[in-house]
């Protein structure tokens, strides 16, 4: 079975001004969104208390919030965990949740929250409870940023050695684009951004570079094979001949991530959705963004020819 026309010759490079324009626009929009709306940081980063409550019968989020307001909890974040019977509650501690030393005591938290929830709904039970101190989050965030930088530089160095500096730079720019747009969508939708999501942003970078390298590899191959290598034509042919694999792989990976999203439960929701977003963004940037950058950087046949060892004997011959 084949979905794609093997002899397709779509002129992707022809619309490079449009595609790069959109990419730049998306990046700017993401930066603005992250700056203005900020991310809805999860407990890992903000610190505080998080509780997962389970109900035997479906429950309305507003009822849970009301029950918490009655015991003086201000602005609790109540979200449904994939269904109507399980809710996640995030809150800042009230006086009744601290022990005699002024520290958050999870047992006390439960002894305050559980009766409050059960007062309105007897079928409520508390399934898990977390407390994270705020200074831990700050460190995690800087660790995460360091990890992202490490990934991107590591990949750049590899591509520089294996290919050429233009490929490294093109990869760098598209990686930053993919990561930014993925995070930007989180800022837009205000989905919770926790440690798992941060990890999956890194996984997105890994996935998307995988995608680009396949195209780059073909570009190098075609440049070396072609007798008269017109860069724009070579790039177009490379994208076209890898198009079917780019999309099929995205579909296959997308299928598994969709399975994870629908069946893996709330713990991996953030992970799966980030990957799904990242796969779409990464695939599009492989097709529309990476190659135009290469073209503008001036990729050419002679930069990609295998380095022949300089032979002094040959040089001396007339």
């Amino acid at each position: 079975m084949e979905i794609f026309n093997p002899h397709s010759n779509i002129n992707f490079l022809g619309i490079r001004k449009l595609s790069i324009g959109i990419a730049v626009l998306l990046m700017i929009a993401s930066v603005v969104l992250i700056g203005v709306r900020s991310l809805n940081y999860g407990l890992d980063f903000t610190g505080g208390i998080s509780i997962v409550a389970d109900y035997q019968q479906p429950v309305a989020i507003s009822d849970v919030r009301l029950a918490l307001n009655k015991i003086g909890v201000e602005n609790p974040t109540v979200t449904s965990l994939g269904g109507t019977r399980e809710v996640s509650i995030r809150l800042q501690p009230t006086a009744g949740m601290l022990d005699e030393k002024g520290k958050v005591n999870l047992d006390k938290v439960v002894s305050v929250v559980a009766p409050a929830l059960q007062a309105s709904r007897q079928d409520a039970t508390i399934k898990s409870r977390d407390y994270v101190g705020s200074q831990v989050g700050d460190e995690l965030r800087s660790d995460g940023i360091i990890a992202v930088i490490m990934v991107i530089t590591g990949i750049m160095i590899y591509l520089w050695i294996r290919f050429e500096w233009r490929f490294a730079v093109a990869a760098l720019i598209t990686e930053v684009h993919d990561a930014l747009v993925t995070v930007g969508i989180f800022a837009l939708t205000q989905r919770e951004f926790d440690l798992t999501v941060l990890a999956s942003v890194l996984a997105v970078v890994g996935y998307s570079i995988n995608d680009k390298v396949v195209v780059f590899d073909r570009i190098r191959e075609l440049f070396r094979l072609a007798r008269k290598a017109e860069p724009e034509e070579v790039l177009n042919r490379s994208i076209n001949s890898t198009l079917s694999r780019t999309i099929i792989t995205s579909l296959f990976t997308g299928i598994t991530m969709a399975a994870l999203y629908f069946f893996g439960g709330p713990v991996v929701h953030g992970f799966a959705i980030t990957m799904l977003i990242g796969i779409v963004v990464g695939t599009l940037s492989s097709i529309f963004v990476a190659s135009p950058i290469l073209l503008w950087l001036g990729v050419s046949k002679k930069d990609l020819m295998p380095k022949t060892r300089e032979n002094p004997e040959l040089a001396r011959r007339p």
Partner: protein
Amino acid sequence: MSDFPRWKYALVVIVLILGIVYALPNVFLPIQAVQITANHNAPVDQALQQKVAAALTQQKVAYKDISITGDHLTVGFVNGDMQKAGADVIRPVLGDDYTIAFNLESSAPKWFRSIGANAMPLGLDLQGGVHFLMEVDQDGVLDKKETSYADDIRSLLRQKNIRYDSVARSATRGQGINIVLRSADDRTATSNAIAAEYPDLNVKDGPSTGDRFVVNASMKPEKLRELSQNTIRQNLGTLRNRINALGVSEPIIQQQGDSRIVVELAGVQDTAEAKKLIGAVATLEYRASIGFPGDPRAVEAAKTGNVPPDANLYYMRDSKLPVLVAKRAIVTGDELVDASSSFDSQSGSAAVSVTLNSTGAKKMLDFTTNNVGQPMAVVYIERVVDTKIVDGKEVRTPTITYSVINDAKINGAFGKNFQTTGLNGAKEASGLALLLKGGSLAAPVDIVEERVIGPSLGADNIDKGLKAVLIGLGLVLLAAAIYYKLFGLVADIALFFNLVILIAVMSMIGVTLTMPGIAGIVLTLGMAIDANVLICERIREELRNGSTPLASIRAGYDKAWATILDANVTHLIAALALTTMGSGPIKGFGVTLLIGILTSMFTSVTLTHAITALIHGNRKLKTLSV
């Protein structure tokens, strides 16, 4: 066709068999069990087994199996409720001689264990339990060390008959001790004496004015580093001992970063007891005491506030009587090797038997030899951390409270072993002994993060994770078979074995399986197929270009290999960075991804090539099913 050499077939077969064997233990569901280990030299034998079995039968608590493996007795139960009921029955029957712990026992046949094939341990998010992140107060350790050096220098100067104005710690922490002397000669003598006696200190002359001659002695940087490393190591050791006393099987106690310790206790739901043991920071200091509690001098000092300069005024823990004790400690808690609760043979009251290390023993012997008949106090130091929110930020202020728990006459010279009496009943004695066991905490620790995961949530997560893996795998298998026909089926076999080998490698290394780890497995499955997509697309291209089927296969694998390698190495770099990220769950994801990329390179390329060569190798082909 010798496209695929024999030795490669052999390699593939061996790897597959090993993969299956080492992955299999994960198929057997673990049984909720109670593990009984002896505390001292109590026997673990048939008699014990019968005793436990009889107790369970009498209380009508059904159990699945009971057996002795190694040095412990394991009783398996049908579910978590029975397990808890069972433990409640067993505990009073066996008393203090045995530790009773909740455990997950593998139900895989025994021979798996004998070849080192074990199931992956499950993370907290998959089996429920508590997670603590603790911070070790490195500053506190430095303070303590510098104070003790200041004391040592004071007595050294006294011993050498060097007159000094003052010996005090520098105002900034870590800057060492400033000694103010009265003449340049004294300064030289002091420098020499300190340098000779304490090689760990850097001695240099400080700024001198008029008749003030200053020497600064500070710890060498490498010693400071060593101190901070030892602090963590000692804390880890102490925590391990304390937690073992809690009766949790296979607790995770790991260092994280420079000053943090992660503790994960599977199966524990009640954090109160765990926290009491982990968080309480109690130290003992043995100090010379000036008179007994309620001594007129102490009462006077308490009334007027005039405490002698070399003494502290503390109060007895129970009677609240004032007592004056020397500022200098003879022996501190970190010189304690062991402490266990016992009964004082003379009074019959509760006591703690203490064993000191050699330096502690020497100091103790020196002191007690010269001070028989004199009182010696045991100062109990408790450290509590207050957390207040000031301007939206957490401010943590430690408060240290001192109390004297015992002040007794030294009945004779002793060193290594002795008893501390005067404790309030057997309960306090055993509680204190527990805390002191394995040496007291050298540095105070604060809990900075705490998570409790209910057991039902854990079971839920396992179900969902398993479902996600199986459905994800199934869908990709189906899609590949439809899209690439025969080659798709070959890729499917490879993908299945990728899962098997991935699990086998994770089990062999002992990676703890967590929810992010499962997500990593699913992602690996989705991306492993990429190599096959690359190969199949290449073969199709070659066929379209008019190559013969066999040549197409060969060219397809050859050309795709370079791409697969480049793509996987870059992906590997990303996975590597994930494994370096601090926190446990992310690490689990990174490690899974890392192993998955490596195994997928084997299965997607080598394994599929082997199968393809086997199918197409000896036949004349007109077409390929790709």
